[in-house]
């Protein structure tokens, strides 16, 4: 069943490979054209957000200037700014992917209701556009990290975490985007939930360092997997498989999300042109 469904999605992407990248480019142009500093907004906005949070936590609440993390039975002490920076970079991509990804079919309705178009590629090309921005931000982050903390071979894990993150939230949008095209309530629900999710994720604090059983519960939040994963790669010098519980919980979630995505997309695909 799932194989048949998945084949539909793969067929939609086949022969459309080049178009996906062209459309991803137009998506970026659409977002940043018409502004004087254009693409710089992609950096300015997250930089400002980061500054505001850093200001509140390090300057405002004076005690929080440093974060202590227990890794390999050693306590590592990080400057709050560096710690937050590495957490925020995946967070920006994730929060955009969830809230915007859910709206993509509705926003691109002209492709759905006017012409014959492989609808699942809408989620792909918009995700790729976001990934371009993420790549640029990651590069800036890496420069800062290498100056403040140094580099190591562990950094290469970014090539594991980044594609996985891309896929995870692409699969999520296979469920959410068709549902949001169907019902506006779904869209509002997702936006409302996301505004709270930030505080339940270890972006500005250390999700490992919570009283039991909260530290275990936090492992079920897949966003933590990526936020901590980026820190594994750039700060903690730890491999993704070293913390097995975290990794396997995520893997299970990844598989469930994938099947749900394939199921929901195919269930709703043919109904979307009728309701949009």
């Amino acid at each position, binding site marked *: 069943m799932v194989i048949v469904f998945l084949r539909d999605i793969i067929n939609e992407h086949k022969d459309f490979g080049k178009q996906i990248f062209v*459309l991803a480019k137009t998506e970026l142009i659409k977002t940043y054209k018409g502004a004087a500093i254009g693409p710089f907004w992609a950096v300015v906005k997250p930089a400002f957000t980061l500054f505001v949070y850093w200001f509140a936590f390090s300057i405002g609440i004076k005690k929080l200037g440093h974060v202590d993390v227990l890794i390999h039975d050693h306590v590592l002490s990080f400057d709050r700014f560096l710690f937050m920076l590495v957490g925020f970079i995946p967070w920006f991509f994730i929060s955009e992917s969830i809230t915007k990804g859910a709206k993509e079919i509705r926003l691109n309705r002209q*492709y759905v209701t*006017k012409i014959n*178009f492989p609808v699942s590629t809408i989620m792909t090309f918009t995700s790729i556009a976001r990934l371009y921005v993420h790549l640029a931000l990651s590069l800036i982050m890496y420069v800062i990290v290498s100056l403040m903390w140094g580099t190591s071979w562990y950094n290469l894990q970014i090539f594991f975490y980044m594609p996985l993150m891309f896929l995870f939230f692409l699969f999520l949008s296979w469920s959410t985007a068709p549902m949001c095209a*169907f*019902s506006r309530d779904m869209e509002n629900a997702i936006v409302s939930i996301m505004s709270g999710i930030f505080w339940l994720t270890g972006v500005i604090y250390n999700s490992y360092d919570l009283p039991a059983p909260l530290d275990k519960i936090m492992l079920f939040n897949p966003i933590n997997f990526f936020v901590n994963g980026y820190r594994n790669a750039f700060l903690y010098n730890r491999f993704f498989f070293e913390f097995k519980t975290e990794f396997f919980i995520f893997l299970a979630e990844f598989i469930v999300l994938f099947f749900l995505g394939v199921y929901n997309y195919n269930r709703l695909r043919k109904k979307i*042109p009728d309701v949009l």
Partner: protein
Amino acid sequence: MSEFFENMDRVEVDMDSKPVIKFDNVCKTYTLYKSDQERFRALFIKPKHPTLHRALDHVSLEIRKGEAVGIMGDNGCGKSTLLKTVTGVNFPDEGTVEVHGMVAALLELTAGFSIDMTGRENIYLKGYILGLTDDEIKVIEERVVDFAELGDYIDQPVRTYSSGMKMRLGFAINVNISPDILVVDEALAVGDAAFKAKCKNKIREIIETGVTVLFVSHNAAQVEEICERAIYMKKGQIIFDGPTPETRLVYITDKREMQIERRKKRIAQLEKLIATSDNEEDIEAAKNVLPKHQKRLEQFEAELAQYTEDLKNYRIEKYGSADKTGFDQ
């Protein structure tokens, strides 16, 4: 459009060839949600008593390469749904649809444009969306630019275009991609008179090359000029499928019959009101409009008799008997 389509030489249709468009028992039902709550609920549980609208009701249809087929029918008869199914936007609930070849739809000319990109970039974008390669687009690029007559605006963002300019660009792209199937809506109106004439000529040119044409119109006379075959649809069903003059007669006969029915009902209502009402003013008003209705009814009945006679004569002349119809052929 009439004057442009007279005396057209069309490529002979090979009736033994494989159909390019084939509908086999196609049904399409729209679910109408009463409220946003019901729509939201429908995401998770199937609605128990949904309001359904059947837009296509067991439609079977074969169209061969080179045929020009007109589709007639009133609003809401399923024409648009049929076209959307051919262009691949809609999906049938039951039955199978086969469409072979590239479809150019002169329905949604501006669909797929990105308004922040230039006209030229949009030619490429639209080409990619239609599945063309870079080389193929390069070939048509200059033709599109020439045809659209946008001048220097071709390298300006589409958001600066007037709606007429956007339509011109859309039309230029759609007709220059060398489609196998052309879907034309009567309501198509592009730009000023001169450009309109150019569009009609282009459509005519394309039709003459022997592409398959689907032409939609309320206006039976227009269909007759372009298509040798026509389909009459009513309430999602194909009522009649045959030579255009015959279909046209069936269509207008049926339409008059319905109008006569409606008119009779209205007259009966008015007569009942006059007989039973206590309100003097109402009776007076009803008495005033009644003759008008009766006059229209007579006129419709005369027309119906004429059309029925025409249809009978057409069939005797064409098939040798009034009982035979093009549907059986």
